[in-house]
């Protein structure tokens, strides 16, 4: 099992020894700047995702047709996601070994993948029937996608915030 992760370990280890990576983790201000930017871009991304999911659940933003939330919020969600991804990537780049050995980091990655699958499944399966429920309470499939969306992204946020607490790290 350990063997399986060796290439990944080597990659993280290689990055950790790059001069730019060392500089980043030793610079308190630059590092903090990216931490702050990561949280703010998360607000834009997760915040507007939640607004859409509440509409899917039939409990929020009910005066707007779903297709409008989807069309008008999507570009902003993508802006938020892009900045979250860039700032998150830089943070991992700056301290790779800390993340490599962190269970919450891998949990976060895994849950993000599941959240992405949930979004894709909704988009390619349930969304095509949007015309019949656009201005009404959505059908079960859409509600399920909305509930999963809120829960999964909440878990992504929680596991992200728990990364500094290394309860399970064996050093």
């Amino acid at each position: 099992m350990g063997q399986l992760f060796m290439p990944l370990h080597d990659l993280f280890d290689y990055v950790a020894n790059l001069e730019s990576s060392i500089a980043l983790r030793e610079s308190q201000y630059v590092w903090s700047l990216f931490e702050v930017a990561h949280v703010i871009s998360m607000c834009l991304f997760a915040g507007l995702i939640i607004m859409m999911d509440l509409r899917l659940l039939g409990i929020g933003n009910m005066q707007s047709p779903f297709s409008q939330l989807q069309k008008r919020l999507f570009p902003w969600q993508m802006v938020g996601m892009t900045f979250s991804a860039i700032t998150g990537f830089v943070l991992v780049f700056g301290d790779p070994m800390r993340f490599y050995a962190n269970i919450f980091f891998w949990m976060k990655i895994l849950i993000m993948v599941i959240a992405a699958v949930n979004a894709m499944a909704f988009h390619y399966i349930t969304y095509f029937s949007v015309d019949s429920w656009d201005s009404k309470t959505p059908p079960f499939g859409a509600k399920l996608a909305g509930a999963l969306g809120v829960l999964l992204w909440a878990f992504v946020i929680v596991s992200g915030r728990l990364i500094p607490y290394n309860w399970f790290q064996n050093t």
Partner: protein
Amino acid sequence: MLEPFFMWLNNLAVSKAIGESIWIFPLVQAIHLVFLALFAGALLIVDLRLMGLGMREQSVAKIARDARPWMILGFVGLVLTGTPQLMQNAMREYFSDFFWIKMYVLPIALIYTFTIRQKVAMADEARVGPTWSKLVGLASILLWIGGVAIPSRLIGLFT
């Protein structure tokens, strides 16, 4: 002036108990962020619309009315999860400039949101005009994100 109060808060049995548990504080901190996302979503959907962006086909009033209960819920959640963090860290927060920036801007942002922003969001859009509308939305983002959220994150990073 408030030092005795913060000292008292710091030394409460509950505050000590929160500090002694290894998981209560981190978990409260994490849930605080989930409520932040909810609050920010309900805030930004309206502010973007005020600025002529985002949900452009809908009236500001419709979007603001729909977003309001979720913004209030998010805010209540933030206060409920913020208080134990303050209690456990009372003295450290007392000596943090960022904490005080947050505490001064917070009531301003709150009053602004429930007076000016609320009035403009509910008013006839033609009467308000796009320029004022944009300014009101921008000021809301600056107050909440620039004045409250960013200093909050900085409390923990610089002490």
